[in-house]
């Protein structure tokens, strides 16, 4: 579903992604962890071309992401993205946030878009907030709207970049619960997170990054019990004992 072949990326002189090779199958849940500045966000943002790669090849849903002839807007329909800071549209209601892309991009009717939106709002547990503005919601509620907004496009892949890092501890759980539900439904997911409990529970694979490289890739049981890399061990001990 997602394939990185020898992908490199530079910001000017700064080599942010180094020889990335990563293959993610349909329905797989991959959790990316690593220290701050290791390139996790950059890696995820390459998948829907929010960042462009410098060399190598990246194929998503059988499409070369960085090919000149690729219709990026068409590819992006199939890839939902959830950000650390939600990025809801503050001038639109919850319902309008969710229906905008289905109406404007997929061209479905407003009525149908609303029904779909309500379906996903039910799913994330806040149908009663349909007509609220984002600023009237808690962080956890906003993030659940953002997830519903992504799902309403009926994507094949969902990307999450630290979806709970900006949340109060009490609301982290409600967002993780929604994400867990998604993994059970077979959604292909790439998740950057520091929530090790979540990673252990739902990930099919853990990818550990440091300084722009993928240092280790393993199923969670294996990775958490016995990380091969010294730096992964160090990272885990710091994050688990903070």
């Amino acid at each position, binding site marked *: 579903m997602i394939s990185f072949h020898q992908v490199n990326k530079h910001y000017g002189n700064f080599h942010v992604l180094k020889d990335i090779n990563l293959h993610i199958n349909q329905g797989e849940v991959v959790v990316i962890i690593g220290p701050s500045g290791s390139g996790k966000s950059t890696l995820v943002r390459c998948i829907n071309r929010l960042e462009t790669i410098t060399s190598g090849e990246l194929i998503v849903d059988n499409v070369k992401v960085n090919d000149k002839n690729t219709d990026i807007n068409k590819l992006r*329909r199939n890839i*939902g993205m959830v*950000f650390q*800071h939600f990025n809801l549209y503050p001038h639109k209601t919850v319902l309008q946030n969710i229906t*905008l892309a289905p109406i404007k*991009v997929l061209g479905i009717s407003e009525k149908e878009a609303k029904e779909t939106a309500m379906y996903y709002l039910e799913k994330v547990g806040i149908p009663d907030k349909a007509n609220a503005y984002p600023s009237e919601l808690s962080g956890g509620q906003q993030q659940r709207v953002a997830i519903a*907004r992504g799902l309403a496009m009926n994507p094949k892949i969902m990307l999450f970049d630290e979806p709970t890092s900006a949340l109060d501890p009490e609301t982290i759980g409600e967002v993780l619960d929604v994400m867990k539900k998604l993994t059970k439904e077979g959604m292909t997911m790439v998740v950057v997170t520091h929530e090790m409990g979540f990673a252990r529970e739902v990930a099919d694979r853990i990818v550990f990054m440091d300084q722009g490289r993928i240092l280790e890739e393993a199923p969670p049981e294996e990775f958490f019990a016995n990380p091969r890399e010294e730096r992964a061990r160090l990272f885990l001990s710091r994050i688990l004992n903070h």
Partner: protein
Amino acid sequence: MLDFSIIVDYWDMYMQGFGHTVKASLLALLGSLLIGIVIAVFRIAPVRPLNWFGAAYVEFIRNIPLILVVFVFFFGFPALGVRLDSFTAGTLGLTVYTAAFIAEVIRAGILSVPKGQMEAARSSGLTYLQTMRYIILPQAIKIVIPPLGNQFINLVKNSSILGVIAGLDLMYFGDLISSETFVTFDVYIFVAMFYLVLTVPLSLGVGFLERRLARSR
């Protein structure tokens, strides 16, 4: 004491001038807002030649006096074989000139919208232009309402430039009435009052909008 018989005797002329000033202001307001938005988007769109064009427009136009921009339309266009009456030439000049300032105001507004808004919208498959239209501009407009209001007030006052090329506006008729009556002070005080009739409500309206938008977020 002001001689109010002037305003009574010359009411028709004042009204004609007032009408043209309103018309020129409204047309220039709409036109400069449209051109200003386009130029602002040109300046920040991820397309180099458009950036250059937008920057050239702004730097060129806002750094020459308004009257010269108007002269381009009034004297320059006829030389190219395009004849414009003085009202049209003046209004066009005013539009093109004000657009440069509005473009800068709007650009600042667009840049003040958080980057995540563009990213969220683009990653949902919206095109750059759709994102501008549905997500970025509506938020930018709210931010720029106060400075935009100032530009519109300037625009109304600047429309007096039409008087210089006999553009049938308030200023033009003020000059006319003054040369017929040999009165200057009173005549122009009445002209000023007509401008105030336009600019004060505009100013209050902007304040009202600002408060309403602040509430609706």
